[in-house]
């Protein structure tokens, strides 16, 4: 089969992705230690690292949101239902029969419709909730505040639910990296920036990318 190489992930995107990965790992790890699930780094170290990592995460988020807007890469994260059915069919049956991916990635259409929905969900539902409840956790947790949020209870419960969602996401996300054209193709793309794509003419995705 003929392959074409295309540059999908810029230097910033790759930096952003891997930094965010490390920060999310750090936050998850220290977060569950604070939650009392295990004891490895010590409660105090976990609290301090969790708070600092939260600030790094928020700083990175601000920078990357700015970058997304300026580079118009945010277009990748707008959910769509176009080809959603095909994508679902691919993951539930096509992948087992060696069928080709329904989506051919392009610079402004790197994410398939399922990814778009899941990432948009993370960006809209999980991260803002984690950030807001996390800030409340640090600075707004005593009941004598003007608006009583029942002490910490509301914030911590939302924050814990969000944390479990993030872990579930990580599991599926890491597994999905193996579903590229080869098992390591997607990870390699996120390292080098280049993704190998089967070079097919009349790509069915051109229609989608033109519509974006």
């Amino acid at each position, binding site marked *: 089969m003929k392959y074409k190489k295309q540059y999908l992930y810029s230097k910033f995107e790759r930096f952003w992705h891997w930094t965010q990965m490390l920060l999310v790992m750090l936050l998850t790890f220290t977060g569950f230690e604070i939650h009392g699930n295990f004891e490895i780094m010590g409660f105090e170290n976990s609290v*301090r690292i969790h708070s600092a990592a939260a600030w790094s995460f928020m700083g990175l988020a601000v920078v990357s949101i700015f970058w997304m807007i300026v580079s118009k890469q945010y277009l990748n994260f707008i959910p769509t239902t176009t080809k959603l059915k095909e994508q679902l069919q691919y993951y539930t049956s096509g992948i087992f029969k060696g069928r080709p991916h329904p989506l051919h990635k392009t610079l402004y259409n790197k994410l398939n419709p399922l990814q778009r929905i899941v990432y948009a969900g993370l960006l809209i539902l999980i991260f803002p909730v984690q950030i807001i409840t996390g800030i409340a956790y640090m600075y707004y947790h005593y009941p004598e505040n003007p608006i009583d949020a029942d002490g910490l209870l509301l914030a911590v419960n939302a924050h814990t639910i969000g944390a479990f969602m993030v872990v579930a996401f990580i599991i599926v996300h890491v597994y999905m990296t193996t579903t590229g054209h080869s098992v390591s193709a997607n990870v390699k793309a996120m390292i080098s920036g280049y993704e190998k794509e089967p070079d097919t003419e009349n790509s069915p995705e051109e229609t989608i990318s033109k519509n974006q």
Partner: protein
Amino acid sequence: MKSALEKITSFIVVLVLPALVIYLTVFFALRKNEPLAIKIPLMSETIAKVDHSQFAILQQNFIDPRDVTAACLSCHNKRDDELMQSSHWLWEREVNIPGRGIVKIGKNNIHNNFCTGAQGNNGSCMRCHIGYGWEDKSFDFNNPNNIDCLVCHDKTDTYFKQKGYSGMPATAETANAEFKVPDYNYISQNVGYPDRDNCGVCHFYGGGGNNVKHGDLEEALFNTSRKVDVHMGTDGPNMVCIDCHKTEKHNITGRSYSVSADNTNRISCEGCHTDRPHRDYILDYHNHKVACQTCHIPVYAKVNATVMYWDWSKAGRRDENGNPIKEYDADHNYSYLSIKGRFVYDDNVKPDYVWFNGTADHFFTTDTVTTVPVQINTLYGDYRDADAKIWPVKIHRGRQAYDPETKQLLSVKVFAHNKGEGAFWEDLDWPEAIRHGMEYNERYWSGKYDFIDTEVTWPLNHMVSLKEETMSCKDCHSRNKSRLDGLTDFYLPGRDYNKWIDYSGFAIIILSLIGVIVHAVLRIF
């Protein structure tokens, strides 16, 4: 060439820069500031010294200690007015207690959990009154010469009030091997500001022995190390009581909630240390809800044991010859006294913890029992109270006499000089001791008595530990044996979690894992 450059670029953006961000994050996370250092002038460094030996009036031949007081007041005039308004003199204060209104409260009308009450036991209890001879109700609270200046201002360590004489030092008639007539010229010519001996002689021995009451105030503090008390350690700041208990015009700051009820005239750690002493956001932020004492007094009774339990109902047993019994525990503390009952002493005790906003209620002699154990005092506060903080306390449990008909605690006469005067310590006769005690206190007694469980709560403030021995996060923020397990009206990170959220969360994680494994297996085969 281009490919090599791209590889280096990838290496930097994928590995080096993300690792740098993580390194800086963890570095700044674990960097701690040094706590704020405090330097305040001590009383001993600032007080003006006067050579009292040069005053002719102190050369006279003193017979009665009241003449010493008169001599003091001849120069220090008006000081008697200050003293005669103080609780050290009156043994009561006027306070506003919610549900009671403005009431006088003090050793006159509230119960304690030790010898139950001072009134009627004047010979023994009033030894710690700052007056001369409060033998009975006839004591003149308006006679300034009845003030005992020396007990607080003696710097020679030779002045003592005699045991059993209502605050009088030994006289020619009462002197014995233990208590000699004080040398008033020597003592009065060497007076000065109170040091730890003057305060400790009463405040360390309250309740009838060393460390019976407080748990954090005892004779070890006469001469101690920083390890026992960072403030009073002679190898450290060597502070004395009044260095913290700042005193203006004989108004001594500081409150003990075994007798106090209102949030005034208190001392706070913040007064010297500021409310941001750690220079660390998350530690300083705790101070909104956690008293400094909670972390910095991890144990009390660090040197000598304190009484944790006092059961009066067991008192009165005699040996086969009809003599009173004394029994000791393995650490040589009393475990049984015929005159007082059964004791449990303990040392290096972990405190209990309560919410406390600086106000309290007390069990008045007129109160009836509504809860068991009877709360001899009640400290107020809860999580939602903006003034309340978590405070370490000693809870002293007891069992004392009450009237099962009137449901009131009984005033018992325990002390007398002689047998046959109705005092329990002399005659070991409960009905007689109760009858005399109730009569002196002008209270009705049905004639019946039984015993009931009682509790008194003492906030801990002294014997602050070295910073190396301060509590760690895990002492409270833990699912196992958190020290705050008793305080359940708030969410404590590390201790608390929502069972259903955790179960559902782990279920989602496990389902995700199963999902990807099944999917992978299907792809392979």
